[in-house]
């Protein structure tokens, strides 16, 4: 049995609270949405994935350790990829060109958790001015004096994150849920859980930490990690980046990479 999915690579300008930004994303339609697609698969399930490039520039479809070559998608064309994964975990897919990855084109593949309660945090940081130079391919790298101003979970910042059902962890007391975190941004982040410790179930970068129970979880650039959280405490608890510049929106606190865990009865 196979899962057929079509994704679009979209690029354009979006507004975040008065801040116009160039964004590239993998979306399920040809309309640009800063929230990238999330694909959920069973273990060993075949994925027939068609990627339509709506940009004039060539992109690619890359998954570290899985698809690294023969993955180009020319401008205004499409390619099909067949994939399956033989273990539980999360992977990030992205367009590795500078006008893709560096301006947000990173999505999530979650494997082996389709029957579970899952949430998804796709982390991304950006500097507004840089996104324009990157989008036009005038700039091909992130400069060493990088100063991000906006910090996203699933393509938006706090408090809008609380309106995203994938970002807001809403469960009942005693529930077990899974949180997949991917860092498609340009710097390392570190998510701190109030009220809870979460167990690292799988990790692509920090694989030596699988099995650890942590309240503060580094999410390095390129990481894709699955956490298991047991909601054993009723109430509302923040989760936020403890890289504290990232809990701001263009310098205002609180903002950026903050969401919450809501545990009801």
């Amino acid at each position: 049995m196979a899962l057929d999915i079509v994704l679009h690579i979209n690029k354009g300008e979006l507004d975040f609270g008065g801040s116009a930004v160039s964004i590239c994303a993998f979306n399920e339609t040809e309309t640009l949405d800063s929230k990238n697609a999330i694909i959920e698969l069973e273990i060993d399930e075949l994925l027939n994935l068609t990627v339509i490039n709506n940009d004039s520039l060539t992109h690619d479809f890359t998954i570290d350790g899985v698809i690294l070559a023969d993955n180009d998608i020319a401008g205004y064309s499409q390619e099909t990829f067949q994939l399956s994964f033989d273990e539980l975990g999360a992977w990030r897919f992205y367009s590795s060109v500078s006008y893709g990855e560096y301006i947000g084109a990173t999505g999530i593949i979650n494997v082996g958790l389709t029957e579970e309660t899952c949430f998804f945090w796709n982390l991304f940081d950006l500097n507004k001015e840089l996104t324009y130079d990157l989008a036009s391919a005038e700039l091909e790298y992130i400069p060493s004096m990088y100063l991000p101003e906006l910090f996203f979970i699933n393509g938006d910042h706090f408090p809008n994150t609380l309106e995203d059902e994938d970002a807001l962890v809403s469960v009942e007391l005693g529930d077990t849920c899974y949180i997949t975190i991917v860092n498609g941004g340009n710097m390392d982040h570190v998510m701190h859980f109030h009220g809870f410790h979460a167990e690292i179930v799988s990790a692509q970068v920090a694989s030596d930490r699988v099995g650890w129970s942590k309240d503060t979880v580094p999410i390095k650039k390129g990481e894709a990690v699955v956490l298991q959280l047991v909601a054993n405490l009723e109430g509302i608890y923040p989760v936020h980046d403890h890289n504290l510049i990232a809990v701001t929106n263009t310098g205002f606190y609180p903002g950026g990479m903050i969401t919450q865990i809501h545990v009801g009865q």
Partner: protein
Amino acid sequence: MKIVNLLVGLCLSFTVSHGQTVVELFSGMDGSLLLDTDSPIQIWGYGYIDEGTYTIPAPQLTFDLNDDVELYFENWSPEAHTIHLHGLDVDQANDGVPQTSFQVTQGQNATYSFETTHPGTYLYHCHVTTTLHLTMGMYGMIVVNYNETQAYEDSPAFDREFRYLMSDLEIETNDAPNQAYPFHEIYPDYFMINGKSGDQITNTPSLSLSMEEGETGVLRFGSMAYSKLIVDIPEELNAMVHMSDGRIVPQTFGVTELEIFPGERFTVFVDPDPGFEEDILVSYYSMLNNELAGVNTIPVTNLSNSVEELSPSDLEIYPNPSNGVIQLKGTQGNFVITDLYGKLAHVLNPTVKQHDLSHLNKGIYFLIDLDRRVSAQMLIIN
């Protein structure tokens, strides 16, 4: 016997009765920290109510496993503050986040109640405008002890315990916190271990990892820094990571380069080789671009190799006490004078017998024999 090198003020504002532990803290916003350049900088912080003073970091709070803790907090400062119990998994009411719990405004007080359910290393900090209140200094370390000689059930026994809370600040922000906006532009340029930096650390004996040969130690590292830390631990210390964030890691592992991100904690056991002497380096890297921004050294002292006192028959300082002019009798060699903290104060000329130390402040010093790595004779200048 367990030796804790940094237990400060445990008797102050800290009472235990019938299994309930009460701690009383206040907050202030008019404090001062002496930088390693000897210039003061503005800080905010927490202190024990009994003491009425504070510095960076806030007092270390030490509890036993399964304590019922009442943390009483008075805000003596003009802005609202909270105490977030970082990593302790407390309930919403006691979480110390203004938007979801409560904040304590000027002149008000509150009590945070919680039980210490897991042994380990934790942190506490203000969660009001965290980006600013943290860099201003409102943080400290919490340790939940399992028992006197073990960090957790079935852990190896340790002889000595060492606690290191790493942090940093941007001097410009601390100098003018009301001009700190925008908060994403904070570039730390001053790097601390337990509030000390550079020579301050090497001149503070309590910060040294000081052990006798054959002893084992437990090191508790925590970070309230903006920076990412790399702790380089000499191989001869045979360091093993046992815990992180108040939980036991599934498999202990050896470590010579420990990476610590903001808010993380690690518990590391050491079992040094005979003759150990290399120091621990702590490097601070920018989270923005991973570039090295600062380095501190944690001195490692092998007490089995350290100076022994000469017998009076070997060496005599005359007169002692003195007005600063002394003679050495009984031996010859290269000698230096240090202050009480081991900081070099004067190098003696080995070709003369009489030495003029009258330029030194009145006080107590030590005479060190560099050639024989012995001595530590006390010298008093009146």
